[in-house]
């Protein structure tokens, strides 16, 4: 290993399993959304997603270091400073979630909860057309956020010269020794 870098375990196994399971369940739910024939698969994917969210909510309080909500709670100040630093071309480096990513995460968790609850209501014929619309609007909003999240990961990986996708698979980040903890 390069002597100028050190490896650090950023994402614990439960966080990584949660992340990729959420990807799989949301993708499954999204791809089966238009079909009545696949409605049972859609519902199973939705319940899976809801269960994963419950786990993440608990893990945000009892999980390891960088997985805890308290570690990456985005204050308006932090978000503005971070976005400014991006525009200045001198992006602040965070070992865990950066503040913009953190906003996306809390939004995704919240919207996932609304999508799950409204999906359940639609399936139980509660709430009428309004509930149906809400379910679709929120799910589409989540997909838009996912797109922004992926774009953010690519831009961040490039700006900081670190492979964030690999980090979410292996859990490890290779930090330059000059990096300070964020």
């Amino acid at each position, binding site marked *: 290993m390069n002597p100028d870098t050190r490896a650090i375990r950023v994402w614990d196994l439960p966080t990584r399993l949660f992340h990729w399971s959420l990807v799989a369940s949301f993708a499954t739910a999204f791809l089966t959304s*238009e*079909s*009545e*024939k696949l*409605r*049972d698969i859609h*519902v199973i994917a939705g319940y899976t997603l809801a269960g994963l969210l419950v786990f993440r909510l608990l893990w945000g309080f009892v999980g390891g270091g960088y997985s805890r909500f308290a570690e990456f709670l985005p204050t308006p100040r932090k978000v503005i400073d971070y976005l400014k630093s991006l525009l200045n071309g001198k992006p602040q480096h965070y070992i865990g979630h950066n503040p913009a990513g953190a906003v996306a995460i809390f939004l995704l968790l919240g919207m996932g909860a609304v999508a799950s609850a409204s999906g359940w209501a639609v*399936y139980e*014929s509660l709430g009428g*057309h309004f509930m149906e619309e809400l379910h679709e609007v929120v799910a589409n909003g989540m997909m838009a956020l996912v797109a922004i999240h992926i774009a953010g990961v690519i831009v961040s990986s490039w700006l900081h010269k670190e492979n964030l996708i690999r980090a979410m698979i292996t859990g490890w980040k290779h930090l330059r020794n000059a990096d300070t903890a964020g």
Partner: protein
Amino acid sequence: MRHILIIATVFFTASAQAETPRDFLQRFEKEAGAAASPERGARFFTTKQGGEWSCSSCHTGTPTQAGRHAKTDKAITPLAPAANAERFTDAARVDKWFRRNCNDTLNRVCSAQEKADVIAWLLSLK
């Protein structure tokens, strides 16, 4: 101020203009360039069109009655306007459900003629 009034007028006209099943019949007949046939619509609705399901798999062969989802067994409100005044009154919903259900039953989109025929038949049911 005048602009706001115009925008408000357009908005309220658009939202207040609830469509009727006849409007959709006319729209699809116009798109198809031919008159609808209720008999053809009945045949189309109650027989399989290449897929595993027909329309009647969920909506029953007498859509003045409530249907039952072929996969989930959930109740479906009647499709015929005579039995359910909500049906075919909202363009977004009509387009959405033709898109979804045609794909489930035909593995393709429905033609304007097919939609016109089905609506003509549903309107003939009392």
